[in-house]
């Protein structure tokens, strides 16, 4: 009985804020879906490690580095030998993830291999952020329970723990977007206080950002010149991006919004590539895998429920959706 109470409390924490199923964490089908998606994550890591082989010759030719802390040990060894060790570890991590992810030690090696290769990439004087999420997800997946990989596991605790860790990976992904949104919202306030006229809320805000980036890159993006010529077109999309990012973490406990937020953020990356020229293709993949295909999402999309769970405007939209449905019910013969 006591066990039941604790698990119910755990489920209550995860339960959607408004209605929803209390059995999400116990469902064998959702457990199976999470297993497949985690397997797909490790398969993609091997694919990326294999693709990296193309750049091994140029990586090994590097002579002058400013090593980041995870590869600070490169100072102590021959640079070429050290870089070779990191590249081999990356490849081995890819293979281990696919072959032995059932073992926690193998998942630790995968995480370390990704951290090392990421740090190597950023030891040439600058950092970009397109590959961070893979490292963070790999870290969260270290927490998977023993037996997570067993198909159709009858162990209720393993199923709950696996789905909890999966939701932890979702939360880690969404947290990074909420942090990005938080800085943008803070940036709007700070710019107002500074007396800056153009912010993300200004009709020209996004176009101005795009123009600045194209000048920085000394090259036009695919849709950038058009957007700068029609700055109003970016007004509402710019505000929508701040909304999507800022409230991303809100979505973790609202499975009816997982798919919409995952695809929405993926779409945001695609459009930011077309306009700003900033691509996050790996993040698009993780968003689609972990949120677009979320094992917690309802089998059929219920737009009324999803609208009612939207942050800030959900209460109002939920009432409107109920109101919109009422006459149809009343009018039925």
């Amino acid at each position, binding site marked *: 009985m006591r066990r039941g109470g604790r698990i119910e409390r755990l489920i209550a924490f995860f339960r959607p804020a408004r209605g929803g199923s209390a059995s999400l964490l116990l469902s064998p089908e959702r457990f199976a879906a999470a297993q497949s998606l985690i397997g797909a994550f490790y398969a993609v890591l091997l694919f990326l490690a294999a693709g990296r082989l193309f750049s091994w010759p140029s990586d090994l030719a590097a002579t002058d580095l400013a090593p980041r802390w995870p590869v600070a040990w490169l100072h102590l060894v021959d640079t070429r030998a050290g870089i070779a060790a990191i590249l081999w570890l990356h490849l081995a991590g890819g293979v281990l993830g696919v072959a032995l992810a059932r073992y926690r030690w193998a998942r630790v090696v995968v995480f370390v291999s990704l951290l090392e290769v990421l*740090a190597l990439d950023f030891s040439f004087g600058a950092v970009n952020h397109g590959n961070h999420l893979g490292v963070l997800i790999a870290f969260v997946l270290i927490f998977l329970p023993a037996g997570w990989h067993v198909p159709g596991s009858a162990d209720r605790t393993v199923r709950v723990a696996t789905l909890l860790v999966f939701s932890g990976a979702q939360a880690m992904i969404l947290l990074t977007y909420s942090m990005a949104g938080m800085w*943008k919202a*803070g940036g709007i306030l*700070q710019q107002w206080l500074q007396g800056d006229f153009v912010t993300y809320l200004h009709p020209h805000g996004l176009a*101005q950002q795009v123009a600045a980036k194209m000048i920085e890159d000394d090259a036009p993006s695919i849709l950038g010149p058009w957007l700068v010529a029609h700055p109003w077109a970016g007004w509402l999309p710019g505000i929508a991006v701040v909304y999507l990012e800022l409230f991303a973490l809100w979505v973790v406990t609202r499975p009816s919004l997982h798919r919409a937020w995952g695809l929405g953020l993926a779409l945001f990356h695609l459009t930011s590539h077309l306009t700003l020229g900033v691509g996050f293709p790996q993040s698009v993949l993780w968003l689609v895998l972990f949120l677009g295909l979320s094992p917690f999402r309802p089998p059929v999309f219920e737009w009324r429920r999803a609208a009612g769970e939207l942050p800030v405007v959900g209460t109002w939209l939920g009432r409107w959706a109920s109101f919109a449905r009422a006459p149809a019910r009343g009018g039925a013969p």
Partner: protein
Amino acid sequence: MGPQRDAHGLGRLRRRLAILLVIYFFAGAASQKLIPGVDEIIPFYGWSLFSKVPNDDSRYVLLIHGQGRRSLDPPVSFLRAPATLVAGNRYTGRKVIQHLGRAVERGNAARVGTLRRLLESNYLQGRVRYELVFERYDPIEKWRSGTDLERHSVGEFTSGEGL
């Protein structure tokens, strides 16, 4: 005892995941925003990307004036230079140029030396003569007409000289 231990274990797992998120949030924000001169402490990052709309913006441009005995007139910018002059990932190289420009203007000789070595050994091909130029501009206006609000040379260098 078994089932109760399982339930305790799940509660502990949930707490660990929550603590992990809280640590990432604070460490990420701190690593980007609070430690002077530090972009981030990998893999912690604050995710402040394009947080403000630049009402007026600025950048450092690297102009290549020549390579070896060959002079280039007009000079060619780092991002538009042919592969015989510039190698490696230009996106990353451009960021190094921004750091270098700031270090030169602040008179930080040690950092200038480090960044020049990185730039010249990883991104510039051979003995290249180059100039760093600072530009300040209204982004939309510059995109449309090419005009700057301010433009001045920060310094001229030759690969490997003065290091």
